[in-house]
């Protein structure tokens, strides 16, 4: 990105004006659609402005981990598809994709939104493995929040396929759901020139000084954190950013009322 644009964004922020004229705590228009992929057991499409991701949940059968004999597994994978941005290239996941996947994973894992004990079919032998794949369609900034929203929506949408003698019949879905009771949602707050901003567009992400992703559940508890960016945060900064994230997550959570 050229320096003129970077300076422009920073200069205008001094006067409390964002590049796309939004308020500092204003999300772009956000929509969630579930059941968008027939072949997935659960799926969702999330749009935040021009940013778009598709999330699919696939169920597999496998052996449990040696130290967790009566628990199923869950994994999150992010594919930053080369089609979604001129900056992404085909190939194995880079550090950005890995960080995003791990932050989304932590929110889901630590809030214990999936009861992995209920994913056990035969102790020590056969368990359900839940794969959450996040694919980007267009990156116009804030992919992480879009991914977290999409992952939760796809999990809420997911239905178990039919299992018989250790094999899955993917053609048949049962009516059994994952029994999701909590709603962990990541909200990323970025800091530029001492201003705190939510839902950054791509251009704002390029000039951010620091960022904090705060994943919260509906009872106001924090279940995952990730600080990014090159500059440090003070305790005061962190407190403010968490407050913003809590307020925003309440707003986003309203969009989930239509799902189920």
């Amino acid at each position, binding site marked *: 990105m050229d320096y003129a644009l970077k300076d422009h964004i920073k200069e205008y922020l001094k006067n409390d004006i964002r590049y796309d004229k939004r308020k500092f705590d204003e999300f772009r228009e956000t929509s969630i659609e579930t059941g*968008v*992929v*027939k*072949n*997935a057991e659960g*799926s969702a499409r999330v749009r935040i402005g*021009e940013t778009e991701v*598709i999330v*699919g*949940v*696939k169920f*597999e059968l496998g052996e449990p981990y040696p130290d967790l004999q009566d628990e199923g597994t869950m994994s999150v*994978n992010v*594919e930053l*598809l*080369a*089609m*979604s*941005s*001129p900056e992404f290239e*085909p*190939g*194995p*996941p880079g550090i950005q994709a890995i960080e995003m996947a791990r932050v989304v994973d932590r929110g889901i894992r630590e809030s214990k939104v999936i009861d992995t004990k209920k994913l056990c079919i035969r102790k020590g032998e056969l368990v359900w493995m839940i*794969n959450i*794949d996040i*694919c980007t*369609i*267009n*990156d*116009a900034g804030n992919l992480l929040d879009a991914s977290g929203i999409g992952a939760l929506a796809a999990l809420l949408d997911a239905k178990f396929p039919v299992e018989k003698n250790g094999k*899955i019949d*993917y*053609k048949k879905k049962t009516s059994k759901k994952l029994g999701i009771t909590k709603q962990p949602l990541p909200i990323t707050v970025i800091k530029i020139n001492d201003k705190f901003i939510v839902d950054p567009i791509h251009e704002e992400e390029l000039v951010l000084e620091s960022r904090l992703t705060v994943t919260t559940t509906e009872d106001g508890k924090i279940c995952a954190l990730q600080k990014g960016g090159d500059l440090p945060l003070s305790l005061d900064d962190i407190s403010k950013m968490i407050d913003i994230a809590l307020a925003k997550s309440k707003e986003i959570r309203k969009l989930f009322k239509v799902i189920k």
Partner: protein
Amino acid sequence: MSYKKRIDGRKFDELRKIEAKVGVIPNADGSAYFKIGDTEAYACVYGPKHLYPKFLQNPTKGVLRCNYNMMPFSGSGDRVRPGPSRRSKEISLVTEKALLPVVNLDDFPNAVVDVFIEFPQTDAGSRCAGICAASMALADAGIVMKDLVAAVSVGKVDDALVVDLNYNEESFEGEVADIPVAVIPSTGEFTLLQMDGIIDKDRLLKALDTAKKVAEKIVKIQREALKNKFEIKGA
């Protein structure tokens, strides 16, 4: 056993429902969405842009590079492991060859035009859907082209000649031939021709002739989608 009625009730020469759009991905220089039945393809064009590493460059004209990829949750069975496979690499290659005859990259020596084709959902015929989407995305990106390319699979299920096989037909018990083809509608030439199965020469030629006719229908939909974006309304 003979195949008198198609599994999904279509006529033997009937395509599945098609939906086509261009300009679906704001970041791309050109993009398209092509849905046929339950098979959904996105195609995205980036370029012409400099090609690195340098030894890949062609000093006489631009290089077309295609990348076919299924999203991990797009298949009807197990999760598809992310990343290239032998299958996806071969399909990327034949996709490139299917599009090359219509694109003119003479004005872009040492450059590359990247085409990324992604599938959120598949139900057979994905390489054809991908080629249809890719040719629309190239046109959307303003690449000089002779014509669009329309692709469809034709074939034989038992004794019946069928068009646009879905997954249930491909896996029909009995003799099946699945022939994905791509056609340049204005010349009637073929730019993709593959086959899985068994067929005799007479039937093959008949199937290819049918494919030419069906390609006309597809290209109409492709052109319509492009017109929807570029036609000046009220002019």
